[in-house]
Structures are given as C-alpha cells and as structure tokens.
C-alpha cells in the first residue's frame, strides 16, 4: 500500500478540495446546523460516522454486485438505498448501544440521508477509481474536512450574534458572505503540492 498516496488523499480532501468550500457538497446542513458550536460538532460526528461506512459499503456493492452483473445504470438508485438504510441502521445501533451518543447525534442522523456529501463522495470514489482502502480513507477525510468547515463557521456565527450588521444583511445573507470569506481563506491551500 502506497502511504504517500493515502496522505495526498487525506490532505487533499480536508484542505485543498474541502467538501463544502471548494466542491459545494453538503451546503444545506452547512447553513442549517451552524448556529451553535455544540450542534455543529454533533452533526460533524454523525456525518463522519455515516460517510466513512457509506463509502466502503457502496464501493463493495459497486465492485462486487453492480459491475459483475452489468448493472452499472442502477448506481444512483442502489447508492441512495444503501445510504438511507445505513442511516436507519446506524440510528438503531447507536440507540441500543450508547444512549448518550444517541442523544447527542439523534436529531442529526435522519438529516444525513439528504446530505449530498454522502452520495457525492460515494459517486466520486467510483469515478476516481480508488481501491477499497483509498475509498474508506477518502470518505473519512472528506467528512473531517466537512466537520472542520462546519465548526469554524459555527464559531464565527456565534460571534456574529453580538455584532452590528446592516439591516438588509441580517440573517442568512451575512452567513453566505462569511462562508465566502472562509472559502477564500481555504483557497490558500490550493497551491499546495504534495
């Protein structure tokens, strides 16, 4: 296994091609659950959990079921089914095994099904032709990048509550501009060569 390639995937997915700020995957929860740091940490953990597992399962299903039986055109349907049932399953398992974690993640889990980052990473992994380990690592790193951006934005938004904002910019408008500035900061990573 080539460690340097894995390292490149990790840095690339977290910083250079950040899922939210460079690829625009998962913008809905980015705007929706970034009001408080505590809830954004919960969402980040839930997404990391689901995205890592979803990446590996969709890879297995694609390469061992869809490809051999020549069912490539069922990709979208199969993936969304896998993700939806996976989210349900994860919710049940967490509820039974760790009530505390369930309390922390509970509300966010159903939301993940419609998070485009999860389906997006599954399709991207197939398009890039990653092998199993690279797929899992990419899913995990992408989710970590997602969480980092989410938590940073939540931190800024908590401060924004106390600052004076022109009336027309109040609400979501200023959040979008903040996200734009954040994206600009993350663009600084784009020149990085690994």
């Amino acid at each position: 296994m080539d460690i340097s390639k894995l390292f490149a995937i990790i840095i690339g997915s977290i910083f250079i091609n950040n899922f939210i700020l460079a690829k625009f995957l998962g913008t809905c929860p980015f705007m929706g659950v970034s009001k408080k740091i505590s809830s954004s940490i919960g969402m980040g953990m839930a997404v990391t959990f689901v995205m890592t597992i979803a990446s590996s399962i969709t890879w297995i299903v694609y390469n061992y079921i869809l490809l051999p039986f020549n069912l490539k055109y069922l990709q979208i349907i199969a993936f969304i089914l896998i993700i939806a049932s996976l989210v349900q399953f994860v919710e049940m398992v967490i509820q039974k095994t760790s009530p505390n974690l369930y309390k922390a993640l509970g509300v966010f889990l159903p939301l993940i099904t419609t998070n485009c980052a999860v389906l997006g990473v599954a399709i991207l992994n197939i398009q890039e032709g990653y092998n199993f380990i690279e797929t899992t690592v990419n899913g995990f790193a992408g989710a970590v990048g997602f969480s980092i951006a989410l938590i940073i934005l939540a931190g800024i938004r908590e401060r924004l509550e106390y600052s004076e904002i022109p009336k027309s910019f109040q609400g979501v408008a200023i959040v979008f501009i903040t996200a734009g500035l954040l994206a600009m900061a993350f663009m600084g990573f784009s020149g990085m060569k690994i």
Partner: protein
Amino acid sequence: MSGKYYKEFIKGVFKENPTFVLLLGLCPTLGVTSSAINGVAMGLATLIVLIVSNVLVSMIRRFIPDKIRIPAYVMLIATLVTVVDMVMHAYVYEIYKVLGLFIPLIVVNCIILGRAEAFAAKNGVVASFFDGLGIGTGFTISLTVLGMVREILGAGKLFGINFMEILVGADKWQPALIMILPPGAFITLGFLMAGINYIKEKKHKEVK
C-alpha cells in the same frame, strides 16, 4: 379554475422561491453557477425531474401506504434522475461534463422530495404539475441570475458573449476571477439576498 393554477405557478417563482426564500437545494445553486448557461441547464434538468415526480407522486398517492411513502418517493425520484442522467449523457454531452457530479445529486436535492411530500402527496395531478412548474421555474431563474452575475463579474461575458469588452473596451475591463471560483458563489448569493431583503423592507415601509 385557471386562476388557481396560475396562482400555484406564480407562488413558486416569487413568494416561495426555492433558493432565495426557502433556502433549499443550495449545493447545485452554488456549485454549477459559474456561468449563466450552466445555471440554465441545471435549472432545466431539475425542473423536468420536479414536474414528472410531482405528477407521478400525485397519481399514485392513493396507492402508497403511508408508512413507506418516503422510501417510495426516493426510489421514484432516483429512477427519474437516472433517466435524465442517461439522456443528458447521450444528447448534451458538453453540458453533462460540466455539470458532472451534480446531475446524480439531483436525487438528494431537498426541493424535489420536499414538494413531493408537502404538495403532490396532498393535491391533484394538474395542481401538482403547476406547482412543479412554478417551483422549478423559480429555481431555474435563481440559478440563471446567479450565473449571470458571476459570469459578468468573473469573466466579463454573458452566455459566452464577450459583453463587457464590447461595452467598455478590452483594455479598461479587468474581470475579477474570484467571482467564478468557489468563494464568489457564496459572496454573490449573500449580496443578492441582502438586495432582496432591502427591496422587501422598502416595500414594507411603503405599505405602512
């Protein structure tokens, strides 16, 4: 009778505009609007899926048991998106390449599932058709406007025509590249929303 359908249509464009009012489907809104033509293409692809899914959901709403309705809708939408994906791959390959990942991601666009659940599951076929048409048109218009602003500021073009150079001369015009890069998407949408808020406030004051 036709007045009612007109109302369903027009509400989607303004009062319940999916992008600027409901804040739904943000990923494609931000992701593909680096030029006006991409915005139009993405909007139309979503519009078609939305209309067909609204009509079909409305048709089968009496046969689907209440408990499994969400998975059923998701399956239906995923099938439609697969069809759109294949058709675009076959006939408009250039646009298909640019929109790329965002075409399969129409499945998880909350607008479509949202309309199926909130409108089509409770209303007749014709009303659902107009609801889909209205919301889809609103989405297309928002995407096109966003794409136009970004293309003019970021590349000095409009629908691929070198519009700013003709207007002010090539030597005086320097496009701001940042507007067609990812940060530009967030910033443009933020300013457009602030503009809409400003107009709303002004109208509100006039009414008072």
